[in-house]
């Protein structure tokens, strides 16, 4: 076994060539995931609300967006952005920004579904009570329904963030210098320890994703204890398991 290959390149895996060169490795993976989930959050809220709209010209486009994205592999979407961006903007775009856009658009569709499910899970009486106390539809949505729905959605958001963190590895395909790319580079250079390198990289991803998964489980328990009894929590767990 050649574990020294892994240890000697650990700083390259974690930070890339930073501070001498551009930031890369795990740090870039995490930045991509954070940026992606931030943009996807807003895209998701907008399209989740649009999908629930009563007006067909708002609802239909949002359904088309969500269903097309959910039916397409992320890899293909990354290629789309990679080849489309230069044609639209008339100049090449940095790879990292291209993948960030692809991640935002991709995860946005999934977040939209989470938002929709979250809003539908709030009892109708909340909206009716808010409307009858004099708020208009938009006010009732922003001040009464959405805050409650968003709180219930937090565990699902964390789960989506975990998926996105795993998916940032796909940025490798168009040459972004993130963790997976760093691993393949080190592997191509050393050629002696492929199993060790990729196992070590898997462990790095695992530490991040597993701790986040555990956080989401803990949050789920806490939130559901507060809102309803244990039975409700069991139902959420089963539902979540089946959705994954």
């Amino acid at each position, binding site marked *: 076994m050649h574990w020294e290959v892994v240890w000697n390149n650990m700083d390259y895996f974690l930070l890339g060539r930073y501070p001498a060169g551009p930031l890369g490795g795990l740090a870039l993976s995490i930045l991509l995931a954070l940026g992606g989930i931030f943009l996807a959050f807003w895209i998701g809220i907008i399209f989740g609300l649009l999908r629930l709209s009563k007006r067909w010209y708002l609802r239909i486009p949002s359904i088309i967006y969500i269903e097309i994205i959910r039916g397409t*592999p992320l890899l*293909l979407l990354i290629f789309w952005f990679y080849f489309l961006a230069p044609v639209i903007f008339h100049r090449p775009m940095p790879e990292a920004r291209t993948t960030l856009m692809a991640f935002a658009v991709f995860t946005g569709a999934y977040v939209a579904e989470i938002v929709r499910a979250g809003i539908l899970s709030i009892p109708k009486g909340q909206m009716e009570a808010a409307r009858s106390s004099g708020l208009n539809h938009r006010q009732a949505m922003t001040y009464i329904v959405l805050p409650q729905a968003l709180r219930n959605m937090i565990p699902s958001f964390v789960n989506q963030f975990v998926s996105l963190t795993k998916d940032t590895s796909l940025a490798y395909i168009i040459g972004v210098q993130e963790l997976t790319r760093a691993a393949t580079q080190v592997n191509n250079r050393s050629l002696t320890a492929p199993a060790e390198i990729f*196992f070590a990289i898997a462990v790095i991803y695992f530490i991040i994703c597993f701790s986040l*998964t555990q956080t989401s489980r803990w949050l789920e328990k806490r939130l559901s204890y507060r809102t309803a009894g244990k039975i409700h929590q069991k139902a959420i767990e089963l539902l979540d398991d*089946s959705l994954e």
Partner: protein
Amino acid sequence: MNYDFNWMIVLTGEYRDWLIQGLVITLKISGISIVLSMILGTIITTLRMTGIKILEWITISFIEFFRNTPLLIQLFFWYFGSDAVLPDSVNQWLYAHNYEFAVGVLALTIYTSAFIAEEIRAGIISIPKEQLEASRATGLSFVQAYAYVVLPQAFRIVIPTLISQFLNLTKNSSLAMTIGVMELTYMARQIESYSFRGFEAFTVATLMYICLSLIISLCINIYNKKFLRMIKY
């Protein structure tokens, strides 16, 4: 945006055949992997439910590890590292029989089986415990009780989620292009490199994936409407 579309190039001749071949490989790799991962997932879940602490511990670590690492890394691990990890005879066999495809199936199967194991477990938990106790009391062994009483009932409940796992698997199989499996995404990329007709090729590939996803969603809906109603809890 000024780009002259030339749809005929991907709808006729060699490139069309490439795309169809790619679709067939995508279906083949996902079909084989879903069957294998259902078998593996069932075995894992059954081992986990035996109540033996060490087995439970091993299966939980297996599931958590493979669920929380990227599929791409797993693919690379098996592809580049199979020499060090798998026994020589297995490697020889793999080299002789379309190595990329076999490694793709291996990685996809293990990744998906971790997800499927969790779903089957959710299904088993939803079966009342008395079912297992009653069949044990009538003299069935643990394995028999599982195979003839609990699992068949659990499967009926989890079939919709298993079908949606198949959909995920079809999409995930696109990652196999990175190790050289010539599936749909690989072919679309190939056409782009040969002809610079990326948009046409990617459009057709995307439409194929979306059609697959719509067909699979339709299957789930039909199943839910026709069969799930009949199951009484």
